[in-house]
C-alpha cells in the first residue's frame, strides 16, 4: 500500500473514531455499571433534613380568650462564606437585632475571615469546607424579628446589594395579658420547654410533635422548590383551657394592684374559687413579673405564692375546730363559752384576746374571733380529733392542683405536740398552710361539707378542636355533715354583721359570710413579732348558697394606724370590692335592695 495523503487521512480518521469509541465505552461504564453508586451519592448530596418546629399549644381561659400563644418569628443567621460587607450589614442589622453595631461588625468580619481561611487552606479529603458555624452562625438568639420585619430587612439587603444574612423560622411565646396571671401560666426556657406554671405541668400536651422534611438543594444550600420535598409535617400541640375567667382575674388583679400601692405588702395573694366544683376562677399574686420579658424579672418574683407560700393562717383556721365541734355535735351554735376577761391561763402561759369578751356563743366566738373561745373548743375536742379534722380539711397535704412546685404545708401529728399546741393551733398558729389550702378549706364550709379538689384546668383540646381530656369536679371526701357546714356558715355571717370583726366585708345587697385572719409573723429568732402581721380574709357569697369563695391575703402591709392592722380593716374591704364586682359579673341576684335597707335604717334612727 502506498502512503498517499488519502491513506494517511483515512488513518487519521480511524484514529479519531477510535478515540470516540473509547468515550462510548466510558459513558456506558459510567451510566450503566456505576449508576447505582453515583445515584446514591447524588441523593445524599442533594437532600437535607430540615426540622419543622411544632407550634406550641395555646393556653386559654374558660371563655377561650388566649392567654399564651406561639408567634412565628425569624431568627437571624449569618453565612461567612458569602457575606460581602460586614460594615454595611452591621449598619442595617444592629438595631433590629438589638446588638451593638461595632460588636456585630466584628462578629461578621470574624466569620468572613474564618470562611476565607478555610477556603485558602484547601482542606484535603472529605473534611467539611467550612468549620462548624461559619455558614450557619446564629447572630443573637434572643433577638428575633417578626416575619414582616425580616422580609423588609431582606428587601433592604437586596437594595443595598448586601449578602450573607438570612433568617430561619422559629416561634416565640407571647403572653398578651402581660403580667396578668403570670404565675399560673408560667414561662418557657430557651429550649421552648415549660419551666413554671401550666407551661410546665402540661408541657407534654402543649409541646406537640416537631416534624421534619427532606428537600433538595443546590450547592449553596438553596432549596429547589420545583423538585418537591417529603417528610412529616409538624403536629401542633394541644390547647389547654383553664378554669380561670379573665374577667374575674382582671378584677382581682386590679384590686390587688391597688392594695399593693396602698399597703406595700411583702406579698399578696388573692384567689376566687367556685366551691361547688373546686374550679379556680382567678388567682393572682404579688410580686409579679412580665412573662414576655422574663430576663428583666427577679427569681423571687416568679413564685406562685398561692401554692408555694407556707404561712400561719391565723384566725381563719378557727373554722376547723368550730366545724369539727358542730360535726361531732359537741357544741351547738348557741352553746355559750366563757371567754373571761380576755386572759386565759393555760399550762403556765396566758392566752390573750384583743379585748375582754365575757360570755360568748360559739357563733360569737367566730364573729368576734375570740382566741380563748376557740382554745376552749379545741380543748373540748382533744388533740387527736383536732388533728384529724385539720387533715380532713386538706391541711398538711398537697391539693394536687395542676400547678407545679406546690408545697404540702406542715401540720404536725399530736405526739409531737406540747401542752400549749392545742390552744395555739385553734387560732391558726403552729400550722403552716398555703393560701390555696385555706380557700379550699373554706370551700368545704361553702359546699355543704364536701372537700373538692381545686381545679385550674378545664379541658385539653387538640389542634382540631376535639376535647382530648376534660377535668370534671372531683370530690375528695366529705368533711362535715350538711348541717354542720350550714351551722358554720350561719356563724360566719356574724363576722360581717355589726359587732363582727369584718363589718367592712359587707357587699351591699347580699348576705355574705367570711372569716378574718390576723396572724403574727414569726421573726428570725422564731418568736412572734408584734408589728408584723399576715392579714387575710376569706369570704363567700351569697352565704346561703355560696357561688364563690374569695381569699385576700396581704403579708406585712404597712398600715398607718396600728389599730387597723388586722384582717377586718385591711383585707376585708378589698374582699368587699372584689366580691361586689364578682357578684355583678356572675350575675348573682341581690338578696335585697341596699337602698331600701339604708332608708329603713335612717328611719329607725
Amino acid at each position, binding site marked *: 500500500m502506498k502512503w498517499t*495523503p488519502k491513506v494517511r487521512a483515512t488513518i487519521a480518521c480511524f484514529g479519531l473514531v477510535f478515540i470516540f469509541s473509547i468515550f462510548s465505552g466510558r459513558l456506558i461504564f459510567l451510566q450503566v455499571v456505576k*449508576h447505582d453508586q453515583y445515584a446514591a451519592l447524588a441523593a445524599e448530596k442533594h437532600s437535607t433534613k430540615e426540622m419543622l418546629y411544632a407550634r406550641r399549644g395555646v393556653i386559654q381561659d374558660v371563655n377561650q380568650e388566649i392567654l399564651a400563644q406561639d408567634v412565628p418569628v425569624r431568627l437571624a443567621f449569618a453565612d461567612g462564606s458569602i457575606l460581602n460587607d460586614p460594615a454595611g450589614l452591621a449598619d442595617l442589622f444592629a438595631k433590629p437585632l438589638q446588638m451593638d453595631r461595632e460588636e456585630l461588625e466584628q462578629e461578621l468580619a470574624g466569620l468572613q475571615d474564618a470562611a476565607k481561611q478555610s477556603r485558602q487552606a484547601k482542606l484535603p479529603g472529605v473534611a467539611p469546607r467550612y468549620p462548624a458555624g461559619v455558614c450557619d452562625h446564629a447572630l443573637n438568639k434572643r433577638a428575633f424579628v417578626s416575619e414582616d420585619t425580616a422580609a423588609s430587612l431582606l428587601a433592604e439587603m437586596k437594595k443595598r446589594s448586601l449578602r450573607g444574612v438570612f433568617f430561619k423560622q422559629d416561634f416565640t411565646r407571647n403572653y398578651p395579658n402581660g403580667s396578668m396571671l403570670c404565675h399560673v401560666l408560667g414561662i418557657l426556657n430557651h429550649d421552648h420547654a415549660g419551666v413554671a406554671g401550666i407551661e410546665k405541668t402540661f408541657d407534654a400536651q402543649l409541646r406537640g410533635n416537631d416534624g421534619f422534611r427532606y428537600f433538595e438543594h443546590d450547592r449553596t444550600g438553596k432549596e429547589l422548590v420545583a423538585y418537591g420535598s417529603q417528610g412529616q409535617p409538624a403536629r401542633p400541640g394541644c390547647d389547654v383551657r383553664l378554669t380561670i375567667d379573665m374577667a374575674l382575674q382582671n378584677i382581682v388583679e386590679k384590686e390587688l394592684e391597688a392594695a399593693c400601692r396602698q399597703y406595700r405588702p411583702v406579698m399578696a395573694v388573692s384567689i376566687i374559687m367556685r366551691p361547688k366544683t373546686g374550679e379556680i376562677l382567678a388567682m393572682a399574686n404579688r410580686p409579679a413579673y412580665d412573662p414576655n420579658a422574663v430576663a428583666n424579672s427577679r427569681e423571687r418574683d416568679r413564685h406562685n405564692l398561692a401554692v408555694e407560700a407556707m404561712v400561719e393562717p391565723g384566725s381563719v383556721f378557727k373554722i376547723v375546730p368550730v366545724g369539727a365541734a358542730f360535726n361531732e355535735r359537741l357544741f351547738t351554735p348557741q352553746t355559750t363559752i366563757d371567754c373571761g376577761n380576755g386572759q386565759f391561763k393555760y399550762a403556765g402561759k396566758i392566752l390573750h384576746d384583743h379585748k375582754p369578751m365575757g360570755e360568748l356563743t360559739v357563733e360569737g366566738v367566730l364573729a368576734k374571733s375570740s382566741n380563748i373561745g376557740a382554745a376552749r373548743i379545741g380543748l373540748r375536742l382533744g388533740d387527736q380529733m383536732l388533728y384529724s379534722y385539720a387533715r380532713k380539711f386538706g391541711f398538711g397535704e398537697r391539693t394536687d392542683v395542676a400547678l407545679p412546685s406546690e408545697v404540702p404545708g406542715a401540720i404536725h401529728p399530736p405526739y409531737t405536740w406540747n401542752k400549749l399546741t392545742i390552744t395555739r393551733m385553734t387560732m391558726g398558729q403552729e400550722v403552716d398552710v398555703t393560701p390555696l389550702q385555706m380557700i379550699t378549706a373554706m370551700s368545704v364550709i361553702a359546699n355543704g361539707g364536701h372537700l373538692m379538689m381545686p381545679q385550674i384546668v378545664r379541658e385539653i383540646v387538640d389542634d382540631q378542636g376535639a376535647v382530648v381530656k376534660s377535668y370534671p369536679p372531683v370530690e375528695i371526701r366529705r368533711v362535715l355533715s350538711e348541717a354542720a357546714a350550714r351551722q358554720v356558715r350561719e356563724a360566719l355571717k356574724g363576722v360581717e354583721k355589726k359587732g363582727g370583726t369584718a363589718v367592712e366585708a359587707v357587699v351591699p345587697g347580699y348576705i355574705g359570710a367570711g372569716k378574718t385572719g390576723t396572724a403574727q409573723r414569726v421573726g428570725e429568732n422564731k418568736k412572734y413579732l408584734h408589728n408584723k402581721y399576715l392579714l387575710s380574709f376569706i369570704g363567700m357569697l351569697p352565704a346561703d348558697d355560696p357561688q364563690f369563695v374569695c381569699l385576700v391575703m396581704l403579708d406585712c402591709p404597712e398600715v398607718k394606724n396600728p389599730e387597723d392592722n388586722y384582717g377586718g380593716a385591711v383585707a376585708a374591704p378589698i374582699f368587699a370590692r372584689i366580691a361586689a364586682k364578682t357578684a355583678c359579673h356572675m350575675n348573682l341576684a341581690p338578696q335585697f335592695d341596699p337602698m331600701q335597707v339604708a332608708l329603713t335604717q335612717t328611719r329607725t334612727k
Partner: protein
Amino acid sequence: MHRKSVIILFFAVATLLVLGIVMLFSTSAFAVDRHGDALFFVKRQGMWLGIGFLAVVAGAMLDYHFWQRTWWVWFAASVVLLILCFVPHIGMRVNGSFRWLNLRILTFQPSEVAKLAAIIFLAYWFSLYAPESHEFLKGFLYPLLAMSVLMALIAREVDLGTTGLLVGVTFLIMFVAGTSMLYIAPLALGGVAGIFFIAVHMKERLGRIMAFMDLEKFKEGAGLQQWQALIAFGSGGVDGLGLGNGRQKMLYVPFAHTDFILPMIGEELGLRCALLIVFCYILVIVCGTLIAIHSRDRFGMLLGLGIVCMIALQAAVNIGVTTSLLPNKGLPLPYISYGGSNLVFCLLGVGILMNIYSRGLSDRGDSTTTRLQAKVTPRL
C-alpha cells in the same frame, strides 16, 4: 457514501446544535438570579447561532480557494488580534488570562480566528510545497516555526488548552501532508515531556493533574468539577432524570452550561443521548474526512481535514475531561457548549466543508456522468 456525506454532516451538526440549545435552556435556568432573565443565555446563544448560520452560508458560497489566496491576511490578523488581547481596555482579563477582546457590543476570542488561520496557513503551505513535504526544512521546520508564533501568543495568554489543540492539529495535518514521522514523533514525545514539566512547575496545574489521579480524594477541591461531573453521569443512568430534572447543574458543577454541558446531558437525558452525541461527532469526523479526501485539490483536502481535526480534537478533549479520562482542561464542546466565537468558528468550518464538497463534485473533471450526477445530487 461520499455523495450523501454532506447531508449526513448537516444533520449531525444540526442534531448537536438542537441538543445544545435545549440543554442550555435547561442548565442556565439559574441565570434568573444573576441576570434577572431566565432566557439570558439562550437569547445570546440564539444571536450567535444567527451569526453562525450566516457563517455557514458564507463558507458554503465562498470558493474555498479564497482562503488560499488570503491566507496571509488571516495569519497577520490573528497575530495582531492576539497581541491586542494584552492591550489594556481592549483586552479583557478574565480569571487571570487574556483570552478575550472587548468590542463594546460583544466579546470574542481571537484564538478562534487563530485556529482557522493556522489551518488555512498549513493547508496553503503544504499544497504549495507538496513535493517537498517530506523534507526537513520546508516540510517540517518552516511551517512549525510559523505556527509557533501563534502557539506562543496563545500560550502567553495562558490558554494551554488551545495551544495543545493547535499542536495536535498541526501534527495531524503534517502527518497527512506527508511529513516524515521521523520528525514528528520525537517532537510529539518532547511535547508530552514538556507538558509534564510545565505541569510540575505550575502549582495549580499540578493540583489538577493530582486531582485527576484520585478524584475522590480531591472531590472538594481541585477535583470538584470532574467528580461532580461523574456523579451527574452516574445518577443519570440509561434513561436520565428527565429534561430539566438535573440536580448537578444547581451550582454543583461549575460551568455546567459551557464546558461541562455533556454531564448535564448525561444526567438529564441519559446514556442514549450521550451516546447519540458521541455518534454525531463520529459522523462529523467520517463525513468530513470523506469530503476532504474527495476534494478537488490538495489544499481543499488539507483544509477540510484540518477543520475536521480541530472540531474532533476539541470534542475529544472535552469529552475526555468530563468523563475523567483526561485531566481537567477547559475546552468547549463544539456546537453544544454555550459560547459565541467557538460556535461561529465551528459553523464556518462546516460551511467550508460544504464548499469543498461541492467543488469536489463539480470539478472532478474527466467523466460526464459524474458531472451530471453532481448537478443532480445537491437538489436531492
